[in-house]
């Protein structure tokens, strides 16, 4: 039986009816792609989230949603996380069972979360510098690789924080920060973070500020009691920390009571970790200490159950689509009965005609499989990038 002839005829038929062929191919492709894509995306999302959770032993935060705490402390994506005090983080590590790294992820700078922390965080995550160095003084910041690329930032540039409420004159003022370092890409949320010293985020919050020297502003004095002066609104409050004005920045109140949103706790050993966890068990405690890996596991246990259900539904939909496609091909074969009779009269064997029909179906299936594979590969490359934006 000749093969080249039916293949040629099949190709010409598919090309002549290319829009119909494309539609059938699209239906088959979607039928194959959707269930596979759900599995791939969830697996990649799990790997993406789990890697960071696994590398973070314990996380301290306010009592409430433990998952939101994980997303704030690890992925910097829940900026409304209830706050705790810096003292809480210090207390957790006070008796040598471990050490704590505070996280204050609350404010934004041009769309990216400003993460107030200590330089210990950079060591803990093993972050490398592509350019510049770590923050060393008030007003310095280090930007992740995506931030640097998107905003075209390099050491020496400035980055202004986003005011929380534009029309609230008493609210948080924007702070112009100095970029002193750019991190190498990590494929983690650190790529999309602006790291700064904890005190810098407190300046953004307005808990610390700098202004003109009050002792030199005799014209602005409203009231004076001993050494204390009340000044009017003509006093200039600094919105940028420079070498000239850094000395004027000061904190009001006890810094131990200043807010953070989470603290990473690194226990000395596994036993210390268990002891620390035990200390935060109890309904009356205003704090919670969690293992992020457990939270992510719990999250994905639920996601996996939903995925299985969605996959079953998608497979049913796909099978229905395939049946409809089969019906279309069957009806098409009936409509072409005159053509097949002509081919038989001219000299085609029944085998040649069967091969012609089979080839057309197989060609559509092969193109669909290739398209599906191509799209899955694209999804495989794109998903981690998308996840850094979504999570």
């Amino acid at each position, binding site marked *: 039986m000749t093969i080249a002839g039916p293949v040629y*005829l099949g190709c*010409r038929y598919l090309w002549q009816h290319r829009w119909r062929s494309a539609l059938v191919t699209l239906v088959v492709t979607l039928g194959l792609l959707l269930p596979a894509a759900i599995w791939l995306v969830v697996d990649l999302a799990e790997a993406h989230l789990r890697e960071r959770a696994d590398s973070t032993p314990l996380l301290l935060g306010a009592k409430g949603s433990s998952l939101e705490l994980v997303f704030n402390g690890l992925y910097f994506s829940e900026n409304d996380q209830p706050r705790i005090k810096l003292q809480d983080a210090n207390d957790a590590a006070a008796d040598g069972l471990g050490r704590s790294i505070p996280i204050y992820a609350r404010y934004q700078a041009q769309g990216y979360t400003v993460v107030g922390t200590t330089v210990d965080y950079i060591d803990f995550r093993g972050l490398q510098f592509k350019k510049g160095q770590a923050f060393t003084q008030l007003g310095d910041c280090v930007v992740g690789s995506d931030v640097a690329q998107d905003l075209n930032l390099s050491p020496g540039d400035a980055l202004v924080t986003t005011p929380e409420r534009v029309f609230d004159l008493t609210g948080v003022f924007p702070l112009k920060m100095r970029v002193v370092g750019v991190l190498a890409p990590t494929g983690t949320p650190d790529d999309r973070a602006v790291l700064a010293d904890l005190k810098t985020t407190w300046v953004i919050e307005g808990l610390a500020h700098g202004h003109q020297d009050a002792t030199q502003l005799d014209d602005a004095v409203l009231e004076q009691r001993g050494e204390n002066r009340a000044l009017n609104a003509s006093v200039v409050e600094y919105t940028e920390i420079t070498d000239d004005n850094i000395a004027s920045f000061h904190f009001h109140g006890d810094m131990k009571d200043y807010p953070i949103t989470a603290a990473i706790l690194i226990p000395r050993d596994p036993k210390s970790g268990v002891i620390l966890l035990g200390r935060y068990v109890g309904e009356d405690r205003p704090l919670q200490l969690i293992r992020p890996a457990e939270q992510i596991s719990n999250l994905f246990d639920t996601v996996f159950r939903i995925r299985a259900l969605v996959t079953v539904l998608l497979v049913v939909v796909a099978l229905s689509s395939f049946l409809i496609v089969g019906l279309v091909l069957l009806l098409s074969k009936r409509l072409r009965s005159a053509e097949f009779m*002509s081919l038989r009269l001219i000299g085609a064997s029944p085998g040649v005609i069967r091969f012609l029909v089979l080839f057309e179906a197989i060609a559509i299936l092969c193109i669909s499989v290739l398209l599906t594979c191509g799209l899955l590969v694209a999804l495989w490359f794109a998903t981690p990038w998308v996840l850094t934006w979504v999570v």
Partner: protein
Amino acid sequence: MSIEIESLVFRYEADRFELAIDDLSIDAQQPIAIIGPSGSGKTTLLRLIAGVLRPVSGRVRLLGHNVSDMTDKQARAFRIANVGLVFQEFELIDYLDAHDNILLPFRLTDELTLDADARTRADELAEATGITHLLRARPDELSQGERQRVAICRALVTKPGLLLADEPTGSLDPDNQKRIVKLLRSTAEQSGAGFVMVTHDHELLDHFGRVIDLPALGGRRA
């Protein structure tokens, strides 16, 4: 170029149709017309001669070969090698252009090779039938007469010994009917093929050397 029919009986059980011909000998060197009214079995006889249909009893000998006793495969191979078929509705493939339609027999069987000779032959036939400028057109872009010319080229491209035409002018206007019959006849002559045509149009009979009246032979029995 002979066709011999002996004690032929063929039945379509479904519509209680029977065709019976005792003896018929045809020398297809001269153009032959088979006539008869609609439903008299003209097309059936043509398909029996071509080996597409098998008789219940009797024999059809074509070019010295008993096509009635051949297997499907043998009959198909014999038909491809020796018989060219032209149909009333042309039976062109709508997703192939005229050139591909002419060369179609070469794509359907291993017994023919689509080589440079075949392509040259297709071009010569296209030139002889005046459709060289239409070879890249699809059937739906051609007139009825042009489509029939493509079908004639397809029937003759394999150099058959016999050209069988089943009412090839049935869909055409009177002017085109005469033109196509002349074209069929002359092209078959040029190709050295015998020519047998089924028709019910008596005005075309002047173009044939012999006319076989099927009802007069026995023909259909219901």
